[in-house]
Each structure stands twice: as C-alpha cells, then as structure tokens.
C-alpha cells in the first residue's frame, strides 16, 4: 500500500507554502516560481504570468543549450544569480542575490520541492491523523 504522505497531489496552497518556506530559510532568495510538469504556475512570488513566461523560457533555453532535458541550472550574472531545479513532477526557478552560495541554494530548493512532493504540511498532518485513526 503506498504511503499517503508521499503520494498526495500537491495543491497551489502547498506550493505557496513551499515557496514561503524557501523564502524563510534562504537569506539570498529574491523571488521564484514553482511550475508543475505541464509548465503551469503553482505558486510564484509575483505576477503568475510573468513568472510562467520567464521560468519556461529559462528551462527551454537550458534544454537547448544542453541538448537534453536539464536537471538543474545555475546562471550567474552581474545583477544576481538564477537557479532552476527540476525534481519529480515539479520545477522551481529562483532568483538570488549575487554571490549566493550555490550549494546552499540548491539544497534549499531541493528541500522545498521534496516538501511539495510530500504534499506539504497539510498532507503530512492528515496522513499522520489517518495513521493514528487506523492504529
């Protein structure tokens, strides 16, 4: 039987929660977007349409540059740094301050996506409650 804590579908609220968590734990995070497998915005720190275009274009350009589907991207410019990670069925694109520590940013982004995959805090609480009720 699959574990409900790992198979719950993620909602927009879960994605927003994951993004808020990333914002809270990462000092260099400026803003970002979480996209689903179809490229639809689940949550963003700004206008959804702008972030959808920017996020999708980044992955498209990275895929073209690599000649394959990329797992993650790191671009450093004079204005700041951009990180993008594809993990499971989600993708997160984040803008960060210049000289952000790449390893730390990628770790935080992956943690946020892992949290989202589990269905966020709400799904974990309901899974715990259902386990307790079954016991």
């Amino acid at each position: 039987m699959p574990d409900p804590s790992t198979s719950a579908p993620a909602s927009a609220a879960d994605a927003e929660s994951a993004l808020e968590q990333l914002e809270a734990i990462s000092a260099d995070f400026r803003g970002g977007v979480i996209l689903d497998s179809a490229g639809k915005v689940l949550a963003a720190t700004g206008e959804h349409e702008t972030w959808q275009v920017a996020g999708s274009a980044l992955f498209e350009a990275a895929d073209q540059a690599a000649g394959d589907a990329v797992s993650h991207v790191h671009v450093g410019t004079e204005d700041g740094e951009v990180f993008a990670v594809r993990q499971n069925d989600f993708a997160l694109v984040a803008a960060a301050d210049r000289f952000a520590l790449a390893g730390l940013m990628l770790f935080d982004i992956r943690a946020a996506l892992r949290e989202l995959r589990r269905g966020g805090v709400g799904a974990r609480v309901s899974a715990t409650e259902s386990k307790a009720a079954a016991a």
Partner: protein
Amino acid sequence: MPPKPHRVLMDRVTGYADEASAYLRRRRLTRKPFSRVFVSGGRISACEAETDEGRALFLAAADVLDAAR
C-alpha cells in the same frame, strides 16, 4: 623604543582585514557572468555568452531576475 604590544596586535589584525577586503574586491571585479547546466546523467556543460545558446540562456536568466524585482 619597541612599539607597545597591543599596537603590534592591532596592526596585524588591520593587515589581515585589509588583505581580506582586497581579496573580496578582486573576486567581485574579476568574476564574469557564467552559466552551468546539469543533465540527469551527471553531464555538466558551461555555456559561453558568445554562443547563441548561451546568449539565449543569459537573456532568459535576466528575465527571471527582472521578474523578481
């Protein structure tokens, strides 16, 4: 007459701080824009801004940074 011990210590700390700030300044000045793309198999490639693919990637990254403003 030899300098007072605390002055020697302060001079040394000041010297280290100067070295550190100069290192950080050099790092900031010499660091050029870069991009790295990672593919699932473990392949990593760096895209130069002079290539078409690299230019497209840097433009897309600039749009992301604009969206975050």
